[in-house]
């Protein structure tokens, strides 16, 4: 008997809710093969992760704040000064990216569809642990490209967990897909050493620890941190005072995701940073 044009069979991936598996079965998700190349044995020479950007996130009184600068670079060249690296995945989840934009945005797209596909097929929301693991798996599958010197992505994932107790959750990853839960803050990208220093200092010896900050204070610290990163890291845009380009700042709370409006960022910047 001839197969129908639409495969409505028993082995559909819908039964498990696995969207990447569905994409792979249709040949829509490329995965790199980790094969020995001429440079085998010295992968460090091929793999030079630059992750040229600065992304930071920390927990504060109102949830998790995630901020990212707007600069996209290729080597020494600034190619774009309005890049959005803080991406909304669903109503309560944000993925912020440092790394190769093409891979990162594709990953965000797969992730977004995965969560929705799971909810629609399984008739229940994917757990936070499941979501965190899904991103980890995408990074792991991408590692072949990383080894070939293209496509490195090092993300931060922020979400709000309603079960068992309502609380914000924050994770950072390495390029191979290892996931680490951050208790207070996380930073990634080429400007992250400076940011990490500031957040560590603020958290221990600042006026208040990070988790006690109110919204405006949190935004102020995020802006100061990004500005500091931009001071020494050419790949980080920080705040463009001439062009009035401000970082993207989003907040994940129990109610969902809110984007901190640009005019309010400008006001906080003028008052406490500039």
């Amino acid at each position, binding site marked *: 008997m001839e197969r129908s044009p*639409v495969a409505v069979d028993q082995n559909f991936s819908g*039964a498990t809710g696995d969207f990447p598996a569905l994409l792979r079965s249709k040949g829509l998700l490329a995965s790199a093969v980790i094969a020995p190349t001429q440079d085998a044995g010295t992968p460090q020479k091929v793999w030079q992760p630059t992750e040229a950007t600065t992304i930071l996130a920390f927990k504060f009184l109102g949830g998790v704040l995630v901020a990212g600068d707007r600069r996209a670079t290729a080597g020494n060249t600034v190619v774009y000064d309005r890049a959005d690296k803080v991406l909304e995945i669903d109503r309560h989840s944000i993925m912020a990216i440092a790394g190769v934009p093409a891979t990162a945005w594709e990953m965000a797209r797969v992730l977004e569809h995965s969560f929705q596909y799971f909810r*629609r097929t399984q008739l229940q929301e994917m757990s936070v642990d499941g979501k965190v693991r899904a991103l980890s798996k995408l990074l792991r599958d991408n590692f072949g490209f990383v080894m070939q010197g293209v496509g490195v992505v090092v993300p931060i994932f922020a979400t709000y967990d309603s079960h068992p107790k309502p609380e914000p959750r924050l994770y950072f990853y390495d390029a191979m897909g290892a996931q680490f839960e951050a208790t207070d803050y996380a930073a990634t990208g080429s400007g992250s050493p400076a940011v990490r220093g500031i957040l560590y200092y603020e958290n221990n010896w600042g006026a208040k620890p990070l988790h006690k900050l109110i919204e405006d204070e949190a935004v102020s610290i995020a802006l100061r941190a990004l500005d500091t990163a931009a001071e020494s890291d050419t790949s980080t845009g920080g705040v463009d005072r001439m062009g009035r380009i401000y970082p993207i700042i989003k907040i994940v709370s129990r109610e969902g995701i809110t984007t901190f409006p640009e005019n309010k960022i400008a006001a906080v910047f003028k008052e406490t940073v500039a």
Partner: protein
Amino acid sequence: MIEEPYRWVEAIANRREYIEAQLASGSPITALGYRDGILFLTIGQTRQKIFEIYDRIAMGAIGHPGDIERLRMAAIELASTEGFTRSAADVSLRRLVHYSLSPVMKSAFEQVYGPPYLARMLFAEVGERPSEDLFLRVEYDGEIATKGATYAQVRQDFAVLSGTRQSGELMEAFLKSQHAADASFEATLNSALEAWSIGHMSLQDSDSNELPERTAVVKYRQEQLANRGIEAALLERDASRAIRFRSLPDTELRSLIND
């Protein structure tokens, strides 16, 4: 058997009779387009009958749960793949049903040595305006009935699904006179509940082919709601969100019922 045309026709007719009998007890589902979206509603089922398919598409179904699941999964797979490779705006209910689901159901129905899909489905896609809402009903044999957004007929802002043709026709007759595309949510909810009651009454008493008295409908609805729950979902017209589907809990609706 299928080498002989007459035997094939007979086999198909038997199969149709068998499926119609199986579906005849299926409790009605209504989908009503109104000002702020489309309301899907049914009453008192043990298993879920209204489902989210994609950002702007929902489905209600009666039939065998195994068949409904296979078709639901297929619809979600097709919509998700299209939404991922192109964009959410390219996912279209018309294409999904006409090019993918209907042909599959037709061939399953007509291949008399294989099992048919024992299911009747109602799909709706919410548009930017009520005039862009699309309702499609798909039968077990792949037949498609369209309500709204068609070229040849007067458009209707609702669609119904029921176990028998007579039950569905009575519900449609009622909604044609009672429901308007610019109705409020509350009015829409009450129309949906009454339409369901009319359809369900017809399933219990198939002799009557006229609309029952209003007082009888209200009484029936009150009896049914006393010990059964409302299953309802919305496709919201609000364009600020990508995902328009939202389940409505029973408790949120009860206070809005007019008695």
